């Protein structure tokens, strides 16, 4: 696979690729069952210092359980978690050098902002003057200095989110856990806050682990993403790897939108394979190294990698069908072509000009095609 070319956004930062680098956190064959239900299934995972790591998955996939085990609220049924060389098994949450920012923020309603932040510092027996300095410092960090004496119910949602962040940062934990940190914010605020959080993480040089169900959030913020499903990690990788080089149909389908063709590998020469779909279509594909001749494989290609035309197209990988749906979204237009075998092919087109040169309408015939290296051959 061409994963080398799809590196991290921060090019120099890739401790996971360096064999001499020691992970900060190790999940070693961790299993967690609740009354017969397996939430996390024999899962191993390494996370490195200064990494912004995202656990991405639908609700019930085990991502929150993983985070809660690291915080100490749940105990692994099997396996162990090691933080900075120390086995965390049996260490209660109040003795762990990790802090969590809760989805509901969990701000103590009977304490002011400053008291909320002081709470964790007091548990450590920090002296008053030092405590006050620290409170001022983290409040400045999240730009909430003016609100120190407010009660949580006198703050807006965005302000509460900042206080929750300040509170969990105040103890300078080795790892900060974020449980759907932006889930309760509206869309505009969420987008702004995403960048603020990544900048903050970079400036502080801290390790962040975030749980989210929002793929866009994970892609924007994380250095690496683990896509989870049914207690397993389906793939770990940088955002470009996850999007452009998904390792399975599940990941391809979970992250972003995708067209998947099923077919038999009719011919294989090196990386180049020819797939024959059951309805007689032929797909020429690069990146087919993993597929074996004669076996079933899948070709996954994202809608934006296709071109659409009202005229017949030349070359390999041309499909024609009836225009079934047109959705004008603003920045782009999404077409659904109903192919002759009844399946739907999704094609998106960026609207570069204010009026589209393509005059396609419902129930007309259209042609779509993609280059052999536009998609990916999957064997799972």
């Amino acid at each position, binding site marked *: 696979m061409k994963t080398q070319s799809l590196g991290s956004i921060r090019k120099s930062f890739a401790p996971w690729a360096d064999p001499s680098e020691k992970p900060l956190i190790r999940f070693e064959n961790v299993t967690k069952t609740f009354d017969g239900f397996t939430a996390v299934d024999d899962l191993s995972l390494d996370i490195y210092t200064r990494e912004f790591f995202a656990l991405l998955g639908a609700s019930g996939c085990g991502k929150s359980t993983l985070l809660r085990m690291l915080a*100490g*609220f749940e105990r692994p049924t099997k396996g162990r978690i090691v933080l900075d060389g120390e086995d965390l098994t049996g260490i209660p*949450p109040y003795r762990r050098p*990790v802090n969590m920012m*809760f989805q509901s923020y969990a701000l103590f*309603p009977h304490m002011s902002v400053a008291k909320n932040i002081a*709470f964790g510092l007091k548990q450590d027996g920090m002296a008053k003057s030092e405590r006050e300095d620290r409170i001022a410092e983290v409040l400045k960090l999240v730009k909430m200095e003016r609100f120190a004496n407010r009660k949580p*119910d*006198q703050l*807006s949602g965005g302000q509460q989110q900042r206080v929750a962040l300040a509170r969990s940062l105040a103890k300078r934990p080795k790892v900060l856990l974020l449980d759907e940190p932006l889930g309760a914010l509206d869309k505009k605020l969420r987008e702004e806050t995403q960048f603020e959080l990544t900048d903050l993480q970079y400036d502080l040089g801290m390790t962040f682990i975030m749980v989210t169900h929002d793929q866009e959030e994970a892609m924007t913020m994380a250095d690496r993403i683990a896509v989870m499903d049914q207690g397993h990690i389906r793939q770990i990788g940088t955002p470009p790897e996850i999007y452009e080089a998904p390792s399975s149909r599940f990941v391809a389908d979970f992250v972003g939108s995708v067209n998947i063709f099923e077919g038999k590998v009719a011919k294989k020469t090196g990386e180049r394979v020819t797939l024959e779909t059951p309805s007689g279509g032929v797909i020429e594909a690069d990146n087919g190294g993993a597929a074996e001749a004669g076996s079933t494989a899948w070709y996954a290609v994202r809608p934006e990698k296709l071109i659409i035309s009202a005229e017949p197209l030349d070359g390999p990988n041309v499909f024609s069908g009836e225009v079934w749906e047109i959705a004008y979204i603003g920045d782009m237009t999404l077409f659904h072509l109903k192919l002759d075998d009844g399946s739907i092919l999704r094609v998106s087109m960026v609207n570069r000009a204010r009026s589209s040169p393509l005059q396609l309408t419902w129930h007309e015939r259209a042609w779509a095609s993609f280059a052999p290296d536009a998609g990916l051959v999957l064997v799972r």
Partner: protein
Amino acid sequence: MNKGWTGFNIASVVIGFAFLYLPIVILVIYSFNASQLVTVWGGFSTRWYGQLFSNRGLLDAAWVTLRVGLLSATVATILGTLAAVALTRYTRFRGRVLFTGMVYAPLVMPEVITGLSLLLLFVAIDFDRGFWTVTLAHVTFSMCFVAVVVQSRLLSFDRSLEEAAMDLGATPARTFLFVTLPVVWPAVIAGWMLAFTLSLDDLVIASFTSGPGATTLPMKIYSQVRLGVTPEINAVCTILVGLVTLGVITATLVNKRREVKKSREGELAMA
């Protein structure tokens, strides 16, 4: 559902409340009756109230009741709150089913049975009956009411607050003391008030478990009521009703003021 505040609905509310309040109002009015004959109005007088304060037996009983009430309500609130925590926070421990059963059973247990069983216990272990036995008995049944009141608040409590406290380094005991308890405090207070009134109110269990020298006010009232209605008892009842009304109204006003203050602070903060 505020449509249909019709004549029929208003009438049922008015009749319902008249039924609830008329007997008490009549009782209060007749406590100011000058006549010895309780059902004949003989003009306004406060003579029965004066007489109350020279009735040694009644005052003693009131004093006993007050002490039993304060002590039993306080102990019951502590035990009941702990029981509520155990029921909501510890889903697994040995004998949980029995524990749950023992918390709920006294709520539906006829008072005569609770009283009888406690008396038989005190006799069996040869414990002198009096102030302490009544107090123990009252703690036992009112702690269950406290547990239910506090439990319902704990159930609606955002559990992540407790997790956040522990995440920030607070031990379970400190978490309970500095986070859980302050947040559920209104329910704890309500539980205490309930336990206190249950104790003040109780006749049956006290009759079983009390001994010489520990006659409570309800026992005293009961023994006099059995002999017939007297203006003096009317006066006692009026004082009790007045105190309760005062207490409830004060509590409501304090609550309201706190809310008003809070919302005003909120408005200022948002401005």
